[in-house]
């Protein structure tokens, strides 16, 4: 465990080196939030609610969504594909480490950095620049837990694509396809309420909604009550367990085809 924590710390420190990047991410987020503000303003025009959501609720949802987006992108797939092509992965495999946990903790270090910089600053921008009042409710308390589970689900998808690199070496296409599927179907850009009824029902059965829709709903509508939130967390937990188990099984298969030449 100590070894994994050390890796996490290392990754966090790397994040700190690129301070310019961090400032730019915040500026970028501010612009992005303003654009989405105008976009949703003109979608709502003078309507009180759309699909049961007020403008404020939707805006909290999408603006926070853009902050969480940076946090939940683990880049594990890109990293693994790079390590496999360069042969670095052979070094990890000779060490007494579990590859899944190694990738998880390294990515957590970066995520922690994104959390303390970009995500927190977005929260502050939302309150002080856009004057959005985030309503208080138990959802806010549950949000951190939900966010951790969301991260783990997102990690499993990235790790799965990373494992596919054992077969294809380069994963550009797979990563892009995965990203599009997740951004559209998880409700990262539009709350799922806006989807047509039938599609929405299907999406709630898929694992993608556990990444964005669940945690964002907890902040946008924090007063839905325990009876709504607990099953949501339960479903997230289910997906974390299922996807972790599946990717572990897949690892055992994928590692057999790995060929690293010389070096």
């Amino acid at each position, binding site marked *: 465990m100590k070894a994994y924590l050390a890796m996490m710390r290392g990754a966090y420190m790397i994040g700190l080196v*690129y301070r310019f990047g961090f400032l730019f991410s915040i500026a970028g987020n501010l612009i992005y939030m303003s654009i989405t503000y105008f976009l949703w303003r003109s979608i709502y025009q003078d309507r009180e609610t759309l699909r049961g959501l007020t403008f404020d609720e939707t805006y909290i949802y999408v603006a926070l969504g853009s902050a969480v987006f940076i946090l939940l992108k683990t880049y594990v797939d890109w990293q693994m594909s790079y390590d496999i092509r360069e042969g670095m992965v052979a070094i990890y495999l000779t060490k007494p480490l579990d590859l899944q946990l190694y990738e998880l903790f390294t990515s957590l270090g970066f995520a922690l950095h994104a959390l303390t910089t970009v995500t927190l600053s977005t929260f502050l921008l939302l309150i002080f620049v856009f004057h959005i009042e985030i309503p208080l409710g138990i959802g806010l308390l549950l949000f951190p837990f939900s966010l951790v589970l969301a991260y783990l689900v997102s990690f499993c998808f990235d790790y799965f694509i990373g494992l596919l690199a054992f077969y294809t070496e380069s994963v550009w296409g797979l990563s892009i396809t995965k990203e599009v599927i997740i951004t559209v179907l998880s409700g990262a850009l539009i709350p799922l309420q806006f989807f047509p009824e039938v599609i929405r029902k299907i999406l709630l059965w898929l694992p993608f909604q556990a990444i964005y829709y669940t945690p964002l709903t907890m902040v946008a509508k924090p007063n839905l009550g325990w009876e709504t939130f607990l099953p949501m967390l339960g479903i997230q937990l289910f997906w974390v367990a299922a996807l972790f188990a599946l990717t572990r099984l897949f690892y055992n298969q994928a590692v057999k085809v790995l060929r690293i030449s010389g070096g």
Partner: protein
Amino acid sequence: MHSLKDYLRLYFIIETQYIKARMQYRADFLISSIGMFFSSLATLGIFWVIFHSIPDLAGWSFMQLVFIYGFYMIAISPMQILFDHIWQIRFHVQQGTFLKYYFRPLNMMFYYMSEMFDSKGLTQLAAGIVVLIYASIQLDLSWTLSRVALLLLTLFSASLVQISITVLAGCAAFWVLDAYPVLGLAWRLREFAPYPMNIFDGAFRFTFTFIIPLGFVAFYPSQLFLQPEEVSSLVYFSPLVGIGLFALTYWVWTKGVNSYTGTGS
């Protein structure tokens, strides 16, 4: 100095080799093309979902936005296909491998960009053409020879705008350690180019018209075809915007190239 013909011949030779090398990863090549196709259609899906709840967006109908989006997809394709190597510039500058581009008797921007030919951009281009034709049939637009010529001219200019914005962002690599956030921001902003500029208020509309002219990638030029009778005079400047912006970009690139000192190793 080489002639344009020499450059075209060279480009053809370089890209043939490049595509051969890419074919090593055949599975990824295929999936990339499919992935590109889906990612270009994702925004249309989002438009579709939004219009499920509202009849129009700031006065624009769903089909009009589809038209603008088709225009946008075509306009961003040349950037994707021909200038994709800009994404690697920060690595080359950081690692010092950028030095090799100084040692050939070729135009440096040409030489640098020729090292990558992104064939999956062709999928996007094809999808864009289909979407544009589909929307113009649905909207019952009439096409004469001169209007088609105007379309080609505006598309050329719009693609120069997109190329310039991205390459300018990439040029940041010459002055800052990590240019990725700058490029990343340009990339994220790009997603908003197909949205009607009239959803923005004063300061933002001004910015996207005159400072980061995203409006000229799709929205302003499309108006020439969607509402030819009520376009603002600004729209007629769109061919000039592309050429002017590219000239500026080339100037900044040259400045960057001249100020780069290598890594010392």
